[in-house]
Each structure stands twice: as structure tokens, then as C-alpha cells.
């Protein structure tokens, strides 16, 4: 792996950058692997990286139907935080956040993780009440969380309309200082490059069409590029989890919906932190390029469509203009959607399945990006040991049978 650093950049710059090599190989597919990960998104690539790095499992392939990082890792609003309500979620997201804090150095790839702080704002007594509960839980779980008054919020985000007579008065909120944003595509590329350097084969344009099993064990995958054998398979295919699982006859409690986002034209800096409002389904931050990135709510009907319903955008922008009156004259540049796989409790499934050797990491809903490092880490552990790490044990598929749901609808901040 070519080392990325300023001296190297200058040295190669003097030679016209002609001797940089591919960030990852176009790997030749082999007939058999110890572990196959389906899906070269953030979670899948992170899984491959930690498998190779921490568990010494390097005979690994990551199969991708399209282009690497083309799913939700390339479509999200890049927000990272860990202020979840229930212990199980708090622990895995906080573990993930800790990995984020040194991820650029770990991968030798600047993922531009920027801890500019994250505000959740409340517009009703009920919301304040719910946010207080979340702060209370966060603090005892070792997650930085503060309750803020309206005045404190106004000081941090002066462009937010905090006057009491708006339709959505800001009654208070919470702050996670360690929350922030990262350069989302870079996360996929950084993990891909680092995993590749450890010997992982990343194979794009290879679609899985079938899952072979024998005696209750997974044996191989059928793909558009032929059959590939493996005793351990991890499905990490946000937006397609049900489809892949059904190839193995597994039913999931997942519904797929479009989740939309948009970016505006670039502006000189107007505010620093990420601002989220669950009541009006808005989350907004300003990128380093100066664009405002706005996330919206999900479309109600199940759909794999990648356009999304413009009505959602209209509703979100009406709320944004009410909350941030000066954004009214700023213009929307691009609007897009990703497919989110949502579980009934808005928590993921990181779990074995009734088929031995077949594991799933799915159902992250709207919250997958922030979990990328932690999710990959625990899933790598799960694949390597064929059993869950304590951090992901609660996120089993069995919980839908036992009833031990982890209801994070409130903390997910987007109405599922």
C-alpha cells in the first residue's frame, strides 16, 4: 500500500502524480474463500478490514453488484453520533464513535471526521421530556450529552430562529460535542484500500444470484460470475437485505423505504454544528465545501425507488425555512434518495441465522453510516468466531420472536 502523507503527495506531485497506484486492486475472483462478504458498502468493507486486521482472516472476498460504495455509504448525510437511548444501542454506537476518532490514522486515509458537535432540538414539552431521558441515559452510559437551553442553542447556531412565536419554537435541546460528520465516500474507499492491502479480494460488478446450502450450512454463493464456495458468508446489503435473505429462505422483519437528502449551493460558512429536529424530520449541516446538506424523512410506502417523493422535500424545506429563515433564498442543487432497510424497532440486526455459517448485518434504517466502523468491527468478530460479540448480541434476529426489541424510534430522529 502506498503510504499517504504530505511528503509523498509533494514527491509524487513533482512527477505529475503519475506513479500513484490503484487504491485497491481489481481482484481476480477465486473459486473459494474462507469468508465471503456480500456488499462492498461501508459496513461490508469495514467487516473485511477488521477480519483481516484483527482476526487474521485474509482469505476473504467482498462481492459487489455495482460499484464499490454505491449504496447508502454514498448517499447518506454523513452524520456521526452515539447519543442513543437504550444501553445496547448506546454501547455499539459509542464504540463506533471511538473508532471514528482515530479512523483516518488507522486507515491512512483522511475520512475528514469532523467533531463539530451535534444538536438535537425540541419543539414541544413532550420532545424536551424525551430528550432529557436520552441525555440521562447517555450520561450514565459514558456518552457525552448535555441539555441546552434555548439561549445556549441560539448562541451556537445564531441563524436558527429561536423566537418563541414561530410555528416550531425551540424549547431546548441536547448537544453531543463529539458528534459530527465525516466524508462518507472516503470511508468506503479508505476501508477498501486498507482491506485490499491486507489481501482481501474486492470484486465489483459481481451480483449474487443464489445461496447454496447443505445440511443447514451455507456452502457457496451463485453469482453472475459463477459459483464461489465459502463456509462463512456475511450479507451486508442495505437496501437489499430481504432479497438476499430470501435466497436462503430466511424471512426478515425489514421494510425498505426511500430516504431522501439534498444539498444546496455552496456558501461561505454560516454555522458549525449539525442540527437535528425530529419533530419536523430535519437534519442539516454545512459541509467543508460550503453546501448545506439536508436530510429528510422517509417515504411511507415500501419502495426501492431511488427518486423519492418530492412532497417530503417540500415539507422538510418548509420546516427548514421556518427554522432557518435566512436559508429561504439559498438554492437546492441536488436531491437524491437511498434505500433504507428499517426494522420494527429502528435497530439493526447483526446476527447469525437459522443457516449455519450465514450471517446478516442489516436493518440499520436511517442510522447506518455512523455505525460503520463499529458495525464492521463486531461483525468481523461474529464471522471470525461464528458467534456474536457482546456488543451485538442484543441485535439478534431472535429478538423479534422473544419480544426483546430495542426501540430507538425516538433516537433515530427520523419518523420510521
Amino acid at each position, binding site marked *: 500500500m502506498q503510504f499517504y502523507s504530505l511528503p509523498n503527495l509533494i514527491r509524487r506531485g513533482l512527477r505529475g502524480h503519475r506513479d500513484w497506484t490503484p487504491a485497491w486492486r481489481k481482484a481476480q475472483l477465486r473459486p473459494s474463500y474462507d469468508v465471503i462478504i456480500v456488499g462492498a458498502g461501508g459496513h461490508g468493507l469495514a467487516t473485511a478490514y477488521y477480519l483481516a486486521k484483527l482476526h487474521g482472516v485474509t482469505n476473504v472476498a467482498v462481492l459487489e453488484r455495482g460499484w464499490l460504495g454505491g449504496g447508502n455509504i454514498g448517499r447518506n448525510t454523513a452524520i456521526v453520533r452515539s447519543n442513543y437511548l437504550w444501553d445496547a444501542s448506546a454501547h455499539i454506537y459509542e464504540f463506533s464513535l471511538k473508532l471514528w476518532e482515530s479512523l483516518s490514522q488507522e486507515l491512512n486515509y483522511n475520512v475528514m471526521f469532523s467533531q463539530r458537535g451535534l444538536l438535537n432540538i425540541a419543539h414541544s414539552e*413532550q420532545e424536551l421530556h424525551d430528550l432529557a431521558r436520552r441525555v*440521562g*441515559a447517555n450520561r450514565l452510559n459514558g456518552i457525552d450529552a448535555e441539555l441546552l437551553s434555548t439561549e445556549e442553542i441560539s448562541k451556537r447556531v445564531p441563524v436558527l430562529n429561536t423566537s418563541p412565536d414561530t410555528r416550531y419554537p425551540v424549547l431546548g435541546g441536547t448537544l453531543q460535542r463529539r458528534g459530527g460528520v465525516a466524508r462518507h465516500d472516503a470511508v468506503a474507499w479508505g476501508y477498501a484500500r486498507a482491506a485490499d492491502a491486507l489481501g482481501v479480494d474486492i470484486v465489483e460488478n459481481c451480483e449474487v444470484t443464489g445461496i447454496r446450502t447443505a445440511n443447514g450450512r451455507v456452502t457457496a454463493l451463485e453469482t453472475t460470475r459463477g459459483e464461489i464456495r465459502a463456509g462463512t458468508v456475511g450479507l451486508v446489503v442495505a437496501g437489499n437485505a430481504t432479497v438476499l435473505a430470501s435466497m436462503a429462505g430466511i424471512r426478515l422483519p425489514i421494510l425498505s423505504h426511500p430516504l431522501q437528502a439534498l444539498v444546496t449551493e455552496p456558501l461561505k460558512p454560516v454555522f458549525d454544528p449539525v442540527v437535528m429536529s425530529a419533530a419536523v424530520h430535519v437534519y442539516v449541516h454545512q459541509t*467543508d465545501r460550503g453546501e448545506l446538506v439536508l436530510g429528510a424523512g422517509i417515504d411511507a410506502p415500501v419502495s426501492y425507488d431511488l427518486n423519492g417523493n418530492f412532497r417530503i422535500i417540500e415539507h422538510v424545506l418548509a420546516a427548514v*425555512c421556518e427554522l432557518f429563515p435566512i436559508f429561504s433564498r*439559498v438554492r437546492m442543487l*441536488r436531491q437524491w434518495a437511498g434505500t433504507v432497510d428499517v426494522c420494527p424497532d429502528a435497530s439493526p440486526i447483526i446476527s447469525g441465522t437459522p443457516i449455519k455459517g450465514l450471517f446478516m448485518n442489516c436493518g440499520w434504517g436511517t442510522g447506518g453510516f455512523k455505525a460503520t466502523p463499529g458495525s464492521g468491527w463486531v461483525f468481523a468478530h461474529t464471522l471470525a468466531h461464528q458467534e456474536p460479540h457482546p456488543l451485538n448480541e442484543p441485535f439478534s434476529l431472535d429478538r423479534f420472536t422473544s*419480544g426483546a426489541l430495542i426501540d430507538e424510534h425516538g433516537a433515530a430522529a427520523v419518523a420510521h
Partner: protein
Amino acid sequence: MSQPFRLDHGGRVDRDTPLQFTFDGRPIDAFRGDTVASALLANGVTLVGRSFKYHRPRGIVSAGAEDPNAFVQLGHGARTLPNRLATVTAATPGLKVRHVNAWPTLEYDVMSAFGLVAPFIPAGFYYKTLMWPRRLWPLYEHFLRHAAGLGHAPDAPDPDRYDHVHAHCDVLVVGAGPAGLAAARAAARAGARVILADEQAEAGGSLLSTHERVDGLPAPRWADATTTELAATRGVTVLPNTTAFGLYESNLVLLAERLITDQPDSAGSENGARVWRVLPKQIVLATGAHERPLLFANNDRPGVMLAGAISTYVNRYAVAPGSRAVLFTNNDAAYRTALDLTDAGVPVAAIADVRSDPAGDLSSEVRAQGIAVHAGAVVRHAQGGRRVAAVELCSLDGAPLGAVECDLLGVSGGFAPALHLHAQARGPSEWDPTLAAFVPRGANGIHPAGAVAGQLGLADALRQGTQAGSTAAAAAGCSNGSDLEVPRANESTQAFIQPYWLPPGGLARAKPQFVDLHEDVTLDDLRLSLREGFESIEHVKRYTTLGMGPDQGKLANPLATGVIAELLGRDPASVGTPRHRPAYSPVSLGAIAGRHIGPLADPVRVTPMQDWHEAAGARFENVGQWRRAWYYPQPGESMHEAVARECLAVRHRVGILDYSTLGKIEITGPDAGEFLDRVYTNAWKRLRPGRCRYGLMLGEDGMIFDDGVTARLDDQRYLMFTSTSNAAPVLASLEQWLQTEWPDLRVYLTSVSEHWSNIALAGPRSRDVLAAAGTDIPLDRRDFPFMTFRQGHVAGVQARVFRISFSGELSYEINVPADCARHVWEALVDAGRPFGITPYGTETMHVLRAEKGFIIVGQETDGSVTPDDVGLGRLLSRRKDFLGKRSLSRPDSVRPDRKQLVGLLTDDPNQILPEGGHVVDSPGPRRPLPMRGHVTSSYFSPVLGRSIALAMVTGGRAALGERLYVATLHDNRWLPARSCHPVFYDPEGARQHV
């Protein structure tokens, strides 16, 4: 300034109406009809901006919405418009135009130093560096943030007004160029309802920039005449200044119309916007094509323009964008520009044509003018700093052909259909090798016509437009048999194009060749991207930021496709383009929000007593869309004091509460009792008419969904109360069960939430007040006991009175028709005055119910709470099934350590526990610290003279009296408390029975 580059005659500007605006403070003379760009060019201003990354000097490239450079800031203060294109902004008197992204001035921009280190900051450089030391990233980032961005946001709320309109038509025509006008005309003549939208201030498109003739008229006059005819036709709406920015499923088309005021200010004449949501039966897309730039060294120098744009400035605006021109082309279009320039008296020093044998009428005409045509030649380098000074030519294999002095270089690399809307609608397109571009093939109900469909000739565009308009009208069911009349124009053979993507090898490597001018993405950046394995067009886009600027890559993306294909040695069709996403041109957030802001942001629902509450000085809280009276402070009273006073009034005398927001559903039919049995956990069929019962409704997951009292009005009629927030969800859920699962049940549900207002009288004197207000209902406790209801009159109004209580006191909930509720409320207040009646709000209601240990759905419960968890297991019928019952026997539902509702009493009676504070057995600094649960409700109870709290605590019910600690939320303190039974006041429930 005297407009030195304004031509003496011609153009469509109104020379009788001169005007002046400023650019960076300098006065600029212009005429009405000018754009800011045409006026700047007329005044010889060629440097209009600095590039996004390297801050290189940049000039005007195009005459339309595709320009990558001409971003400026208009006006100042609240009405400023950041990042507007000078090429589409009308010049208006008093307009203040400023550059963006340069400091201190456009001419001397300190950030142009980035250009010096450009070799070391190629695409994606930041991924490779700025990682050490870790703690310095915020500093690096601070610098990056301030270097980036373009214009400035306004500094105050937007004073403009935005409108939304829903529109329906048979045929929507997007684009009013030759094909669009012809299509609209044909559709209108077939009797169709037509909407014709064009992004420019006047219809005509390319017709306004050409010397060709249509139906014997000069093309601009034909455009004017046709537009006038259309505007006068019934059922036709012509929308200038209107950009179609999105085409969604169901063929919903979104148009953004810029509203123009005749009293422009420093921000110009744009005064808000109107978004049209059009649902047409058929769509004609006549969106034209964008001319493609060409690659050569320093191809970003001011003075390098698209050839077609030069023609537009010359013919339409009567502006010569330079004084000596060179044209560089791979097709015929630039020859027309050469003729336009020559006509205007601007010498054309040379034409470099990629093609080895440029033949045809235009080429002969040009040669006849004595213009030097270099066949098989290309421009390899544009010399000059802030303006082109000369161009170096070479042959296709790189042999130098000398330099030609010029200050204007027109380029034409062919045309890329503006297929954005078509692509947004998932319409298929194909690579057309004769055009070297993707051409849309049409989709369900979408008819491309004219240049967007690859018909670049005028006669062809008019013919195809007419055909498309007629076909679309017929498909929409409009056809009156009128003959198709195709506007006539000179036939021209379609220019053949010789694709030219990459400059000859080994040339001018040190000088950048820009693929995306806005994003400063160079050919070398694309090479680097491919070299590092970022080969998919989406990878290239994301790695290099190709096409991600506010110009949305309109010029860059079609060029990049060809360049990447050639670099990879692949077919351009397999390379594709980045996915086209709305918006085609940027649309302001305010326009998309429309009028749903301020007072119209979202409905505010109020009860008939709202005026009274306001007059009484109530403070309000938002509960969903409802605005509810929260508490009624008297002058000088704090919230705490007001609530204490209201609480004590209810406990000792009488209070009155507006409880009208509760949901109310009449359930009628012979099977109404059976229906209630299925949806509530307890039994209902034996409830006698006239009696009330508390019910608990679960989701199928066994978790509490809603609660409330239901009364049996008569044999076949029940009235169900739901919580305020759940009024709509409960009704929707009940209808779903009834209609989809139990259609055999003979039950009708009717919402009466809005018909009946609900006024609660609570307190030991409430009976006296009700009597004093005048009622024909016997109030004696034997005639009207607890948990019954009576019909009669209260204060002269027909009423349903329910003896139910959410405070634990003697209480009557008086339901009266909403139009009489204000009268009854006032009558009760008047009658209650001798008894000390006190209006109370939702806060007091919460305290009173907490004293009684009554839960509030959504406060004690959160979707993970079963009836047993909150001590209501007794309401679970064993004899029948009900929604959610099966879930209550799942392993997790019967887990012994579930959280259960308990009371908490602090050691310090004045200490009010924080709601949301978490409960632990033993405090300490360890994190994570095992938690037992959390405080759900916490108040100071005035009647008890101490604080009380409700909490959900694991295994709490079995360990009442245990020592627990609650963590504070703002600091790191621990508040000691003991758990207790959750009913703090009148545990026997005697008071409500009196």
C-alpha cells in the same frame, strides 16, 4: 462607461431604455433586455469570477443556465441572492452585482496562491494528507471551510413571498425554442389545454439568436408572433422565466417561475418565485442541447467562450464579446458563429477545425469571406493571463501550426442534448455516434423534440416539434382533425461531428486543461482518478468532484464521458453519465417551501374556548397541532406558583379544564360491543347503557397504544374517548381492523371529536357549580354515580355529562356541541365564582393525575411498556382474545426484570427529581453504570407539600421501599429516593366517589 463592445445596430435590447447597475461598485451601462453578462461584455468586462479551488480568473462562457463561471452575488442584506448566474440575470437599474469567492478584490485575489501549489493538491489530495497530527484537523478544517464556499447567505429573514400552484393540462411543453413553440402551437390548435414553460424571460430560445427565417419571417419575429398567438389562445398558459427543474414519477413536473417585479432593487427584479406542480397528460420535452467545450491548455481563460454563446451575444444582445476571434470546432456550428461575427464587423482570424475535410454550404460561405480555415487542426494552448491573448494551433498529431493573436476564442465540441428531465424520469437514452452524445429516446407520455432529440437543424426541429405537439395532444385525447402545419425554414444538412476528446499526446502538460471549469477538475485529475482505480463514472464524480458545482456539470459531464471513454479505451455508451438528479437548475428553498411558512407553516388547531384562554392570560403548549392552555399565571406569578395554586383549587374547591382536544369516536351497530371486546383488553359487552369504563388498547406487539374511557350511550352505541395525540391514529387503526379483518362486524365508526367540546369540572365543589350553572340532570350521587353518564342540558345547552375523573376528585366532564361550548364554559365560570372556580391547564392536569398514579400514554409509556408494567394487569381479560394478547406471553414480556411503574419519594421533600433522570442502585463514577430505569413524571405536589415522581424501574414492584438514586441531568449529582406505591394521594379512591 460607454459600452465599447456594443454593436451599432441589431439585437433585441431596447436602446431607448438605458439603465445602469454596478459590478463590484463600478457603474455598468446597459439597456433593457440585457443580461448582466451581456452588459458586462458590452462594457469590456471579461473577468467575472474566480474558480472554486484554484481561484483562477474566469470569464463568461455561455449565454445561459449552463455557465460554469459567471456566479455572482446580487444585492445585499435580507434580499441578497448568492451564486446567481450573470448569464441568466436580467440587467436592471440599481442592481448591485458583486463577485464571489475572491479576496480582497477580483483582480488581486490572495487565494490565487492556490494556483501555485496546484501540482500538489490534485483531486482528492485531502484524502492523502492533513491527518497528522490528529488534533490539528479542526484547524486544517477551519481553513478549508473558509477557503471554500461561494457566495454569502442573506443576513436576515427572506422578505419575499413564494407561491405554489397545482396545474393540470393535456400537454406540457418544456422549452419554447423552435421545437417547443411548434409543439405548443400544434397542440393548441388541436384543442389541448397547454402549458408552455421556458426558463428565459422571452420565448424563442435559439430563434432569438439566429439570422435564419421561419415562415418567411426573421426567426425572432416568428417566435414573437407565435408566442402572442399562443398567449391569446384559450386553454394555453405561456410561462416565461420558468424553469422545469424536476420530472418525477406519475410525470409530475415541477416548474419554478421567477416572479418579476417592475420595481427592481439592488438584488434585481426577481421577487420571489412560484412553483408549479403540473400533472400533464403528456409532455413534450424541447429542452434543447448544450454546446460542448473542448480541451486544450488553459482552456479556462476569460475570452474562451462557447461558439453558440458568441452568436447569441452578437445577434440577440448586439454585443461583440471580443475584437478579434478564433474559432475551434469539430462541427459546422462554429461556422455560423464565424459568419455572425463577420457580419458584426468582428474579424475572425482563423478557424481550427478538427475535421480533415470540413465541407458543406457553411464552410464554403466562410471561406468565401476570406476566413482562414485550418482543417485537421486544433487549439493546443490559450495564451494570456486574465484574458486570452493568442492561441497556439497544432495538427492532430501535435505538430505546431503557429500562434494566432485574438482576444476571443469560440469553441464548439458538438452538442449534448439537455436530457436531464428525461433522465430524471428514468427515460432511456442511447449513445448516438453521429452526434457523439446521449440522445433521449422518449418514455411513457414524454416526447422529446428538437435539439434534445438530436435534431439540430432549424427545419428539422420545427417539423419534429409540430409532430410531437400533435402526437401528444392526440395521446391526451385532443384531436380536432385540423391539418398539421409545419412552420417552414431552410433545410440544412445536419453538421457531422468528428468526436474530439483528448488533445494530442505530450502537449502542454504543465498547463491545466479543464474538464469541469467550476470545480477546477482537470484532465490530469481524471487521469489520476482512473489511475487510482476510480473508473466508474460515479467514482470519478465523487473522487474529483466532477459536476458537483452549482452549474451541476451541465457542460462538464457530457465532455467527461467522452474523455473517460477515450482514456479507458471504452465505448462512451458503457461509461455513461453520472445519474441526473433534480434540480435541473438550482431552486431556492423558499420557493419549494411555498407559502407553508410563518402563520401558515402548519395548521394550529384551537378549541372554541381559545379566545377566553388568551384573555385569561393563559400560556400555551403545542401538543401535536393543537395549542392547549398550559397554565394561567396571574400577574407576577411564576409557572410553579400558578400550577400550585391551580392544583390546590382543584383539590380543595373546584377547577375547570378545557379538555376538548380528546378524540371522540361514536361506535354504532349491533356488534359494537364485540368490536370493543376485540380492541380493548377488558370486557365490554356487559357494560350497561349509561355506564362508563376505562379501556386499554394495545398494539399487536402487546405494548400500550392508547387508553381512555368509553361510555355505552345506548344498546347499540358507544362513545370512545382517545388521548389527544392518538385521536387520528386510533380511528385509523380501528377502521383498518374493521374494514380489512372484521368486515363481518356490523359496526360504524364516526369521529365526533370536533362536534363535542369537553369541559371538565373537577374538585369537591364541582357538583355545586354544575347545579348553579343550571342543569336538568339530577346530580345526587345515587342518581348519578361515579363512572356513569347522563344526557340533559347544562346552561341551556344539550349536553352529555360524564362522571369520570382524571384528577381523583369529584369530577364531571361536560360535552356540549362546540358552537355552544364557549357559552357553557362562561356559564360554568360565572356559576363557579362563588365557589372559587379556577381555570387550570394541562400542567396542573398532569400533576393531579400523577398524584393519583394515573399514567399518560407517551409519558409513562414509550411503545415498550405492557399493561402489567404499569400495574394494569388486572385489565387483561383471560376469557377472550384481544389485540396484542398473544404478545404478552412471549419470553421477553414475562421476563421478571421488566421495568415497572413505581413511585419515588426523595429524601429531601423539596427536591424535585429531573424527568428523564436515570435510576441506579449505587451511584459512582464508573461508566457505563448499570441503570434500573428512569423518572417518567416528576412534580411538586402542592396538596402533599412535597415532591413526587413516577418512574419505570426494573423489578420495581416487588421491592417497594428500596433505596435508589437518581442522576441529575446538568451536573453530576445523585438524588437519593425511595420507591413507593405509585398512588400518592387518596389511595382508596374515595374522593372521586363522593
